[in-house]
């Protein structure tokens, strides 16, 4: 309850923002923030709770993006149905990959996850009939969203994207809460701390990790297709490239890995930095990400959140 009340207040304040903020740029920043939060939380399920540092999550992001785009383009399936098909595809692919790669541990798993994402990127690049190769796909005009004959939105402003993004970020946060408190969550944390000990206590490691990956991939694919429709254009490097995966990992690491609030904080930090730098050194915001990750690993390996709470505890102890 103690955390729910401020959370609910924050949500209400956020939901009211489009009423008095009209600048499309400000709304754009918020949408980027929601995407960042949702991605960080998605990765956190498998990277944070289960401790499986996947650096190949761009695979699920890209399947979400390409799935929904291709379904709309080739068979004219409206996005709000197509997205779920893309999510299902992504989960199926993730289960197949998880079945194979979760036999590996530590750095070997990291390497395998990168290889899988690269393989999928190269497939998207080479199957030109389906994906249009390196030229990418431009989003067709979206059919207006209707409910009982009344047009709710024709997608021409940023406001519908704002609310959908907010809902998506909240959904991913809720998923993290639910997983963390569930039996699966405890299994995952036990596996993260010591897989062999967890296994000997009767926890099924491969099954638990696959369940975490399926949840994580579903959320990531959802965000991927949302982001693709928001941007309106996709190409293999942009959605399947390793930059997407690294950004997801960084969001969780910088905020505080394995916590529900961490990726939120991480997304705020990263979005503010990259937008703040866009006007000064446009392309090199990744430089600052790099410096940030070095500093975080060396100075505060538990992320900003861990760093702050450690400071508070120390202060409390002194007083």
């Amino acid at each position, binding site marked *: 309850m103690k955390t729910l009340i401020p959370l609910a207040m924050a949500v209400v304040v956020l939901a009211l923002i489009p009423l008095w903020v009209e600048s499309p740029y400000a709304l754009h920043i918020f949408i980027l923030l929601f995407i960042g939060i949702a991605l960080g939380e998605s990765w956190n399920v498998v990277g944070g709770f289960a401790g499986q540092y996947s650096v190949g999550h761009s695979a699920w992001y890209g399947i979400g993006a390409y799935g929904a785009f291709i379904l709309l383009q080739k068979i004219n399936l409206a996005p709000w149905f197509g997205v779920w098909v893309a999510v299902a595809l992504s989960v199926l692919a993730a289960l197949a990959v998880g079945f194979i790669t979760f036999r590996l541990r530590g750095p070997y798993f990291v390497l*395998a996850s990168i*290889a899988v994402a690269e393989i999928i990127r*190269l497939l998207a*690049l*080479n199957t030109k009939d389906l994906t249009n190769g390196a030229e990418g796909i431009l989003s067709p005009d979206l059919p207006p969203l209707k409910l009982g004959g009344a047009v709710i939105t024709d997608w021409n402003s940023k406001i519908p994207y704002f609310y959908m993004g907010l809902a998506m970020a909240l959904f991913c946060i809720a998923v993290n809460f639910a997983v963390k408190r569930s039996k699966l969550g405890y299994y995952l944390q036990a596996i993260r701390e010591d897989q062999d000990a967890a296994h000997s206590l009767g926890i099924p490691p491969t099954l638990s990790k696959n369940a975490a990956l399926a949840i994580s991939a579903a959320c990531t694919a959802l965000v991927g297709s949302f982001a693709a429709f928001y941007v309106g254009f996709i190409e293999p490097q942009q959605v399947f490239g390793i930059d997407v995966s690294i950004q997801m990992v960084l969001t969780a690491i910088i905020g505080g890995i394995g916590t529900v609030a961490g990726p939120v904080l991480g997304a705020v930090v990263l979005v503010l930095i990259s937008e703040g730098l866009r006007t000064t050194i446009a392309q090199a915001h990744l*430089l600052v990400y*790099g*410096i940030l*990750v*070095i500093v975080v690993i060396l100075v505060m390996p538990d992320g900003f959140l861990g760093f702050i709470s450690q400071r508070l505890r120390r202060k409390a102890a002194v007083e």
Partner: protein
Amino acid sequence: MAVLLQSVLSGVLIGGVYALIGVGLTLIFGVMRVINFAQGELVMVGMYCTFWVFVLLGVDPFLSVVVTMPALFLLGALLQRTLINRVLDALPQNQILLTIGIGLVLSNLAMLAFTSDYRILSTSYSSSSVGLGGIRLSTPLLYCFLITAAITAALYWFLVKTDVGHAIRATAQDRDAAQLMGVNVRHMGVLAFGLGAALAGAAGALVAPTYYIYPQVGSAFTLKAFVVVVLGGMGSIIGATLGGVLIGVAESLSGTYIGSGWKDLCVYAIFLLVLLLKPSGLLGKSRM
């Protein structure tokens, strides 16, 4: 038949470079148990060094190895002393993230300094080739392979015959025992990272005449170096040499017979297969 022989030989030539990058990676891993995700970015730094030494001073790219190797050795030793050293006892994931961060910093610094334009280093012999009984081999690749072989031979001599080499190998075999025998394992770490970086720099210099030079070129080399090292067996130098040549040949054959768009895909598929079927690699001891 000529086509087959041609692509196998081209594969061996380019595989030599992969071997060089992989040996650097495996040396660093052997001594410190750190997987360097910035290895490809070090190759990129070597490529730019070579490019500017060529453009400003007119030094031949293959001669510039004499400059790039010491320069990259210093860069590597500096990175080890200031950053890597502090995470030797941290979780492997955190070590990986640290080196990913270093890679991001290097490639984006290169972008700020040199823009993201693709640059080409063209020498008088860039597009020439040597005939060998019906087979033609690209001259720059041939030079590149010969120098690679010389550097690899020198490295073997250093590791097998010199005292410092013995100390490095002892540290790789058993860090604690080496320390008890009076080896300064901290220095060996600096030395290994410096050497690994110098090998990456040499590879960068050697491929500069045949590859496009741009800030993001590193990540492709990093991935390929992992494939090479895992195929050969993590920590095994002979394994990495063999792995490099095998991957070069596999890439060249799949490029010839399947299509050039698919060659990287074949390489990663082999990588996954090796990880699954024999994760300790061809010549490595199992550390899983």
